[in-house]
């Protein structure tokens, strides 16, 4: 089950991993999209499905860390209602600026923002997205003020960034990378604690003095709570084996994802818990809500 519409990166990786699992488990693995309410409908559906290992969900940072803090009356508990099987994808966000902006480094950007508070705009794919929250965190840590311009998805936001109508964006690496490589936009930093192997020259925000800053977009396989341990272990083993296959690794790279640092289901659960706390704090401080 993919809680998003077909065609996005979560859907793509689900279809790729489904093909691998199908081979490994010698039984058909069907990908079904159930989008709606920021992924909550699909995730909730799986949370309330039979815990027999036949229904899995691509749980993501939105459905399992940000949304619980964003939506009142949240229908499920991202930690207790799920067995977290395998983290599949971790994509850093990148701070990209329009070529028109005379900022070559994070320090330049902070200077510009401080010189004229409220002049700069930062775009994001939607209210409550990682791009939005990264921007809010950046504002807090640097004591600057910039106006958040939400879009419907990252693509139109990137278009306005290239055209120079918005000055900066904390876009995810996969969608920003082609533009950076083509010189249509300038990258200043990554939002993760470690540098990305795709842009090894690019400093992290923490290196640039904006700390603590460690945001990663992620998603992975999850099952309803109560799924028996052997099934979880089997799926986790097959998933991590699939991730090591060269074919999949190559395609993962095209999505801007590094091999995930979290390997076991237990680590994954701890990770989800940590992320949920982190974003609960961030969302509260940014004042963003959906009601």
């Amino acid at each position, binding site marked *: 089950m993919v809680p998003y*519409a077909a*065609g996005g990166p979560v859907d793509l990786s689900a279809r790729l991993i489904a093909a691998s699992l199908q081979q490994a488990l010698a039984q058909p693995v069907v990908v079904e999209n159930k989008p709606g309410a920021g992924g*909550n*409908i699909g995730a909730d559906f799986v949370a309330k499905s039979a815990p027999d290992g036949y229904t899995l969900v691509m749980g993501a940072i939105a459905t399992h860390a940000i949304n619980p803090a964003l939506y009142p009356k949240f229908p499920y508990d991202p930690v207790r209602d799920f067995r977290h099987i395998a983290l599949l994808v971790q994509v850093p966000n990148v701070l990209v600026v329009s070529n028109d902006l005379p900022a070559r480094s994070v320090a330049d950007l902070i200077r510009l923002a401080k010189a004229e508070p409220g002049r700069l705009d930062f775009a994001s794919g939607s*209210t409550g997205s990682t791009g939005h929250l990264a921007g809010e965190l950046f504002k807090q840590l640097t004591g600057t003020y910039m106006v958040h311009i939400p*879009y419907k998805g990252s693509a139109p936001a990137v278009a306005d960034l290239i055209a120079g109508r918005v000055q900066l964006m904390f876009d995810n690496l996969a969608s920003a990378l*082609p533009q950076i490589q083509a010189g249509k936009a300038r990258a200043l930093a990554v939002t993760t604690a470690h540098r990305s192997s795709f842009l090894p020259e690019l400093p992290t925000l923490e290196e640039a003095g904006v700390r603590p800053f460690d945001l990663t977009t992620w998603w992975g396989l999850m099952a309803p709570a109560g799924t028996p341990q052997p099934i979880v272990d089997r799926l986790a083993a097959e998933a991590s084996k699939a991730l090591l296959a060269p074919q999949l690794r190559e395609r993962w790279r095209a999505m801007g994802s590094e091999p995930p640092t979290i390997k076991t289901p237990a680590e994954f659960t701890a990770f989800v818990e940590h992320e949920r706390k982190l974003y609960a704090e961030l969302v509260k401080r940014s004042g963003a809500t959906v009601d």
Partner: protein
Amino acid sequence: MEQILHNLVIGFGVAVTPIHLFYALVGCLLGTLIGVLPGIGPVATIAMLLPITFNLSPVAALIMLAGIYYGAQYGGSTTAILVNIPGESSSVVTCLDGYQMARQGRAGPALAVAALGSFFAGCVATLIIAVAAPPLAEVALKFGPAEYFSLMVFGLIAATVLAHGSLIKAIAMVVWGLLFGLVGTDVNSGVLRFTFGVPELSDGIGFVIVAMGMFGTAEIVANIEMKEKREIFTSKVKNLWPTKDDFKNSWAAVLRGTALGSMLGILPGGGALLASFGAYSLEKKVSKHPEKFGKGAIEGVAGPESANNAGAQTSFIPMLTLGIPSNAVMALMIGALMIQGIAPGPQVMNEKPELFWGLIASMWVGNLMLVVLNLPLIGMWVKLLTVPYRYLYPSILVFMAIGVYSLSNNPFDVLIMGVFGVLGYICAKLECEPAPMILGFILGPLMEENLRRAMLLSRGDPTVFFTKPISAGFMIASIALLVVVALPAIRKKREEVFVEEG
């Protein structure tokens, strides 16, 4: 020029290899099929086929997926004309006159003109992509929130011509559409509006669902009511081919539709859709006998069909040259490229010329295939109308339900379609046209989004709509149009334009 020729040679060299011809054919066939089936759109189909493309070369994968996309554009008009159900969102307008033509027994000419017009538009648009893709992409970038908003204001005003009945009713329907468009999550604040605590409504009501309900379900309900008229409709199927007069009436419409479609298709965000509405309005405006529109005017089929096909093709431009998808299908194409390990973006054209030009050449090949496929099929489609209604309509309803369900695998959507079916039936009884409502429904949320974004960017300064040249142009055109509509002196002429009968 030489460069272009050279590029086209590369492109055709790639496109006419047997393997690529085969995948283009597969794509076109599939596309036509899903286009004909109401509700099952290219998005769902392409998503399902994505895993299959792992094992294809990137060029073959893209050629096949592109074939599905424009094949669906052809196929979508078939259901629109025959049974008044827009198979694809862009064929909503085709319903207006296409279906009326079918009712007069002229389904054959309508289908033929739609296919030929689409073919012509496809050829021209392909050529445009080959010659001018990179500069056009720059034009697309010039469109920011302010420009979009002004364009849509213009579109909405121009579209009141869509109605052929009372103007008041048309405006009421537009407003109604705008209101339905508001359902869902507000982009700026994330606040849920008019969702009544139903999570399924938080992403708004799907366009396809509304269109299928208002046109399709309502039509079926209305047809069950009229027992005798139905028989006449089927027995009157006459010639399959357009007459000389038909060609004479439609060639100019095809040209105008192609031009409009090519321009609007470049703009990300519903360009192709806007193009078909725009083309219809345009045809009605320039026509010498606007009273025929809505009653089976062949120009009303030729213009929008050419426009939507041209738009479908040129919408590849932002994707290919900027790596920015202009609609859901293009987003899927980008996904398909990413699966192949190609990061789509500005550099694709230079780094992978065989991919870029091969795709463009194959578009032309695909269009040719579609016309060859579709023309002989016309006879068969028209025969479909002679299937007794007690078989035809239940099966259509089933297909519609499947299609709507497949959008997001949610039974709630089928329910919503039913609700809109009832609404559509009531509207038909009250002689309120669904087309203006659909337009309001599409444009409303887009207008709001762009208006508020433009205002955010300008820090609340509304003059931005008049200080940006492109935006100002649209605004002035809108005002001019309003004056024309409102001036009492011209009022008499306007009545001729708007009022269908007496």
